[in-house]
């Protein structure tokens, strides 16, 4: 009898010890085994990541998640979108709750090193701006002395704001908010004079207003906010896969590969770069643990970088963002894919 108690204890201890092993590891293998990509996105920022009335997510960041799912799992619908706030996003990634964080997050030194994240590239070059009501009569951020400003906690913008007002010797009263929706509500009610976040986020927020013409975004851009998807530090292969999916989308635009002509180009293109990208020659996918068609599927999912931009946040959408810095390097922008070779 005593023996059985003893063995029971040992068995329990052994079970527990084995449980300790099951955290992290090979993300690619895990995602494939699970059959679903867990992707951390914004809780709701129209144009970047927002669910519609039926719960279908769409947007610029969402399209990247779908492209990765298409490349890795062969089906762009195999994504579980996990809404994260400015406060929860990095914990969600480092705890393994999400495999990939595509949530307009700024690439900074500390996040890349101390927080143990790996930013895999920049999908939108942004900067922090201010939005105010037109009837306030303010035309420059320098005139915001003494203003009450809504700011999302846990963002780089919170730190930039403190630095900017200190550097310009101005005072302000912060109103800390948790999500974009809350910021919108407080700003609309006039509980703050100005709302500050990334300029793209301001444009997206303004587009959702009933009266966008009554609000202006001030000309000052007070910081550099390179927004990019991030993965956990340490799993280099998974980082490579995500990085090259992003480059594939950017390169596709450069070489004129669109979701419309991709099948045709895959068969007939004579451009060796396009052939390697689409897997017609050289099996590049095999080098990162995927098949030869990975990039083709990623591009076919929602189109190339330019198509995604135009469909979600471009000038034809209510958000109306110009390409600006985010144009291809051949067009004077900063989007530059590394060679597929």
């Amino acid at each position, binding site marked *: 009898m005593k023996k059985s108690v003893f063995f029971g204890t040992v068995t329990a201890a052994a079970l527990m010890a084995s449980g300790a092993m099951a955290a992290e590891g090979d993300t690619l293998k895990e995602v494939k085994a699970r059959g679903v990509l867990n992707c951390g996105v914004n809780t709701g920022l129209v144009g970047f990541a927002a669910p519609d009335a039926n719960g279908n997510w769409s947007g610029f960041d969402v399209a990247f998640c779908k492209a990765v799912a298409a490349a890795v799992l062969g089906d762009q619908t195999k994504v579980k979108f996990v809404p994260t706030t400015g406060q929860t996003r990095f914990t969600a990634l480092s705890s393994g709750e999400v495999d990939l964080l595509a949530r307009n997050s700024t690439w900074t030194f500390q996040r890349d090193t101390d927080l143990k994240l790996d930013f895999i590239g920049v999908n939108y070059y942004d900067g922090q701006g201010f939005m105010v009501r037109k009837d306030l009569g303010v035309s420059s951020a320098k005139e915001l002395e003494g203003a009450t400003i809504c700011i999302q906690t846990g963002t780089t913008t919170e*730190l930039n704001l403190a630095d900017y007002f200190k550097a310009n010797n101005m005072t302000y009263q912060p109103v800390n908010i948790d999500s974009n929706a809350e910021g919108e509500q407080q700003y609309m009610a006039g509980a703050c004079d100005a709302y500050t976040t990334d300029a793209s986020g301001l444009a997206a927020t303004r587009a959702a207003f009933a009266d966008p013409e009554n609000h202006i975004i001030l000309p000052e851009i007070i910081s550099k906010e390179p927004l990019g998807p991030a993965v956990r530090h340490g799993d280099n292969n998974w980082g490579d896969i995500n990085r090259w999916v992003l480059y594939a989308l950017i390169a596709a635009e450069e070489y004129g590969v669109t979701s419309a002509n991709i099948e045709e180009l895959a068969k007939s293109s004579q451009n060796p770069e396009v052939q390697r990208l689409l897997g017609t020659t050289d099996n590049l996918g095999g080098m990162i643990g995927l098949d030869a068609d990975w990039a083709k599927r990623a591009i076919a999912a929602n189109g190339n970088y330019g198509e995604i931009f135009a469909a979600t946040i471009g000038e034809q959408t209510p958000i109306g963002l110009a390409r600006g810095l985010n144009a291809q390097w051949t067009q004077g922008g900063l989007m530059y894919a590394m060679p597929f070779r």
Partner: protein
Amino acid sequence: MVQYPGANSPPFKLSMLIYDRRYRSLTIQAVVFILVMLVAAWLINNTIENLARLGKTFSFEFLFRRAGYDIPQQLIPYTSDDTNLRAAIVGLLNTLQVTIFGCITATIVGVMVGVLRLSPNWLISRLMTVYVEVFRNIPLLLWILVVLAIFTEVMPQPNAYRGENPQAHMLLFDTIAPTNRYTAVPSILMSNDPGVIPLGREGLNWAVVWFAGGLVLAWIAHRFLKNWAQRVQDQTGRRPTTWWITALMFIAPPLLLSWYFGLHLDRPVLKGFNFTGGAKLDNAFVVLWIALTLYTGAFIAEIVRGGILSVSKGQSEAAFALGLRPGRTMSLVVLPQALRVIVPPLISQYLNLMKNSSLAIAVGFMDLRGTLGGTTLNQTGREMECMILMMGIYLLLSLIISGGMNVFNNRVKLKER
């Protein structure tokens, strides 16, 4: 059955650990203890392993780094150049502030509602029932958001006070301006400022010391006066009228000091985007305070009602028979006995209020959860350290509150001799 140890007790066998009543409980305790320790060891080991796998170290060094963010509500001076530690202290003080204010007002609301619920007046007692049931049965977070919505949507913007024909008017001779950000109230200025006693970065104004000293002296003098009046009453049977001397003692020194320091009000004036001058009562604090008060007050009301009902009716009838008036019956007979029932559950309501105040982030009130467990955690990425520290602080606060309340409980509880 009496057991005789020694001579005729059988020799110890291993099976006795299970079958012998004398050893069985020890065996069970040992097994449970080992299991609990194994679970704890597994949890700790799992944490250490996963932290190591992520390449994260365990260190509180981040507390001494520059915080870099601003905090809207601060009881001690703080700028973005201060350390995360100071930011955490600012947050802790905010937590304490809302807890203390909340406990006081919740107790007042709770006692009033609890007594009124027992009122023979049908309308009043039903109204109080509705209040208790409505607040007790809806989650606190919803109440916080409702109060916040009322404050931001109904109150005027500071802008509404501007212009020739403003939409909103200041109250009380143009001194108080409620807005949807804060309530601007006048502050007290001195034309003959006695200066401050420097205490670190803060300072304690001499005027505060003088006023406090005046009050303490008045209170001591009041005690002497009371003793003297008691002596006179004991000797002559007549109590001398002293209320006007007491009033004079409490009112005269502050008046004299105010005149000497040249106290005057600094009115808030709308300038630029906001009111300047005067003081601002932040809405985030007020909203949280009101919501916590109303919510906890409903629970306290029930505790008070239960306490009063627990005192048998014969007690108050006996008091009436002795000729005590209703007020004195309540304060001398019923309440002292009711307190014995009221205080223990009241302690847990105070603890609940303190813990519930961590919902402050919903209204942008930067309490401990908002600074240490919010922005600092997020900007430094030290989830483990911040959480452990925060849990430790909340635990410590709870223990202090319940310790203090237990002392009070021991004073009011039934003295058994």
